[in-house]
Each structure stands twice: as C-alpha cells, then as structure tokens.
C-alpha cells in the first residue's frame, strides 16, 4: 500500500512537470519575437506531450500493452524532428525574403 502511495506521488510530480513544461513552451511561442525562439517553444511542447504519453503508458493498467505509449511517443518524436527541419528551412527563406528573423517583419499579408 505504501508502495502504491509512493508511486502516486511520483505520478503527480511527473504530470505536474510535464504541464509546467507545456506552459513554458506556450510562453516561449507567444512572447518570443525571434522565429527560432518560437520553434524552441514548439519543441518544448512536443517534449512535454511525449513525456505525458510515456507516463500514462507506464502507470495505467487500462492500456493493453505498456509499450504502446512509447510507440506513440516515437511517432511524435520523428514528426518533431521533421518539423524542426521544415521550420528552419522556412526561417531561412524568411530571412532571404525579409532580411530578418523577426516574426513581426513578415507582415506582407497584414491589412
């Protein structure tokens, strides 16, 4: 019983950690004006989601195979890497076009 209690504490701590990392990622995306800083925030958010998937796969008994959470996290990880590559390519194109990494500089569509 005390064992389960201890696991429960660890579970809450881990969930709170992933939530805080997610919130800080949102803050980085919202407050950074540098486009690369925004990408860093997106990476933070994806990582916290991965952490959450692994936590639930590890601690929940309802999932048939405990490895499934890890497989989902694996997919997200691969997509995150592809996303980072595409994002940096877009930022390079942005710099060529507008001469700045400032996200506010790309205001061509602004009415």
């Amino acid at each position, binding site marked *: 019983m005390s*064992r*389960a209690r*201890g*696991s*429960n*504490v*660890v*579970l*809450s701590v*881990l969930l*709170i*950690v992933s*939530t*805080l*990392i*997610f*919130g*800080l*990622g*949102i*803050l*980085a995306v*919202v*407050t950074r*004006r540098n486009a*690369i*800083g925004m*990408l860093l*925030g997106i*990476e*933070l958010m994806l*990582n916290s989601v*991965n*952490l959450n998937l*692994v936590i639930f796969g*590890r*601690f*929940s*008994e*309802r999932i048939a195979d*405990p*490895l499934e959470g*890890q497989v989902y*996290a*694996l*997919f997200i*990880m*691969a997509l995150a*890497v*592809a996303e980072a*590559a*595409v994002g*940096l*390519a877009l*930022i*390079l*194109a942005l*710099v060529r076009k507008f001469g700045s*990494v*400032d996200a506010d500089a790309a205001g061509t569509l602004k009415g």
Partner: protein
Amino acid sequence: MGVSSGQTAAFLVLSLLAISGAFYTAFANKLFHSVLALLLTLGSIAGLYFMMGAEFLGVLQILLYMGGVVVLFVFGIMLTPARDEDRLPPMVKWHMVAIIGVGLLTTFLVFIFYYYTGQFWHEIRITPRITYDKMFQDISALLTDKFLVPFEVLSVAILVALIGALYVARKRE
C-alpha cells in the same frame, strides 16, 4: 516501480532540472543560451525516460533531440542575422497578459491532475514494476505489426518533409 527514497530524490532532481531548463528556454535574453537550456531540459527528460523504464525512448531522445535537433538549431542561429534583444518595450504589456493567461491555464491543469490523482487513479491502478526482457524486439514487433500503416505513412511524411525543406530553403535566382 519500487519507489525507494533515492529514486524519488532522483525523480525530483531531474524534474527540477527539466523545469528550470524550460524556464530559461522561455526567458533567456540570448537565443544561444536558450538553446543550451533546451539541451538541459531534453537531457533531464531523457533521464526521466530511463527511470520510467523507457530506455529505448531515452536513447532516441539523446540521439535525435540532443544530437540532431539542437545542432540544427545552432546552425539556424549561426545562419541568421543576430538579434538578441528579443523583447522590445512596446510588447511588455502584452507579455504580461500572455504570462498571466498561460499561468492560469497551467494552474488549472495542475489542479486537475492533482485532483484526479486522488480519485481517478484508484480506478486506473498503478502497474507494478514492469521488467522488459526484450524491449527492443517488442517495440519493433509492434511497429511492424499493429502500427505498420502509421509507420509507413510516417516514413513517407519524413521523406516529403526533407524534400520540402530542401525546396523551401534553396537559393532562388
């Protein structure tokens, strides 16, 4: 998992490192410091994976994120014109709004998690320590059996992303 006090302490230390790294990533003035703090966060999360028995993901996290994505970001920073002063004075008011809003959202989520770990988890029950004899075989069996279609779609998506990145970043005449 057999939760000894040493393990709990390691969990707490890794969690603190991850949170402080994420904090510095969001608020560092110099972008390069921000990337280094992201490295710290990624490493702590890899450590948490190891402690949760997800060694495969921990190794991948170190290889892909700490080895690949961070290098990509450093190259991105070096290839773009320097602009360290991220936050100009006129934006500060809206930054406060953003910080308060995200703070409220995060508190709400933490409250939900904390509340439900009291009730919900009795129902879900915590699995005892799982020992994987052949985790790598099991994961590859899952990938080639149950998750075969998403796996193939994922490889096509990565191929398209790579070609698209090259196309977008090419030099135009």
